[in-house]
């Protein structure tokens, strides 16, 4: 399966989804006015990946900012991962936040309480 790779912009994150090593990364800023279009290929890629996932899928989310439009799409991504985790494949979501960014930590905890996938909160110390 081909990797998904999208370069980041001022309003959209860098995306690297790799089916070979099972590492999925979303990094940067996600603040487009309409996020549906941007997240569609991510959800579709995961849909395809879910038919034959690796034993372990590691998800690295490292967002500096995300808006409420993105928050729903990110939940859609996580729901796909939840479906994979419900199968026999393990999924871990590593949620990164900068040390003084309590809002970002809290956002991760919100998702953790909705999605049945293990989360690991990772503090980035500068």
């Amino acid at each position, binding site marked *: 399966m081909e990797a998904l790779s999208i370069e980041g912009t001022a*309003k959209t994150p860098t995306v690297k989804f790799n089916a070979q090593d099972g590492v999925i990364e979303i990094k940067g800023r996600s603040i487009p006015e*309409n996020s*549906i279009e941007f997240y569609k290929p991510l959800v579709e890629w995961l849909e395809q990946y879910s038919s034959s996932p690796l034993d372990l899928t590691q998800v690295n989310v490292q967002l500096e900012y995300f*808006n409420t*439009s993105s928050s*729903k799409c990110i*939940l859609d991504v996580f729901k796909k991962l939840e479906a994979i985790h419900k199968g026999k494949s393990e999924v871990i979501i590593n949620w990164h936040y900068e040390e*003084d960014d309590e809002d970002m930590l809290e956002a991760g905890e*919100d998702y953790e309480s909705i999605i049945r996938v293990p989360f690991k909160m990772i503090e980035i110390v500068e």
Partner: protein
Amino acid sequence: MSFDVNEYYSKLNGDDVLIAYKGNVSSELISNVLEVVEARMDDISEDSKIRKKVYNVLVESLQNLYHHIDVLPPGMQNEYEEKFGILVVSRIKTRYRISTGNFVQTSKIDVLKNKIDKINSMSKEELKDMYKFILNHQRLSDKGGGGLGLVDIARKTGNPLDYAFHEYDDEYSFFNLDVHIDFNYG
């Protein structure tokens, strides 16, 4: 006397203003404003915690405008473009103030007012629950709006949403929303 948007704008646009804008609210405008405000906060070496909050809240405020701006009152259509809004970001004494304004049809005021009053009456914990409920149960509109903007702003600032409606004519009012971010938050 009817509400004068230009007079109102000059009153807001005083000292300590990081950016003031009135006109068409487009996606490009939003990008430019964010860039300018980020650079201004960099210039004054703003505390990174405050900087993040201001940026986040500014994104939501601008995109709320972008998604919800109504058509202009007929009397103003010659002077301004369709997606007309006002934005003033100020740094005053102990807080940042993000002021936005746009015309709304007077018939829609009650719904908006009730929504804001409800948000303002909620505790931090209740806002969190409301946010999670909307996140998990409501679908995005075609435009990408999620109905979460105001809840998110209230949550992140910990302050009530300060609003006013000014009557413009029989059909239209001007909606002003002031959002405050305290320096000593949390």
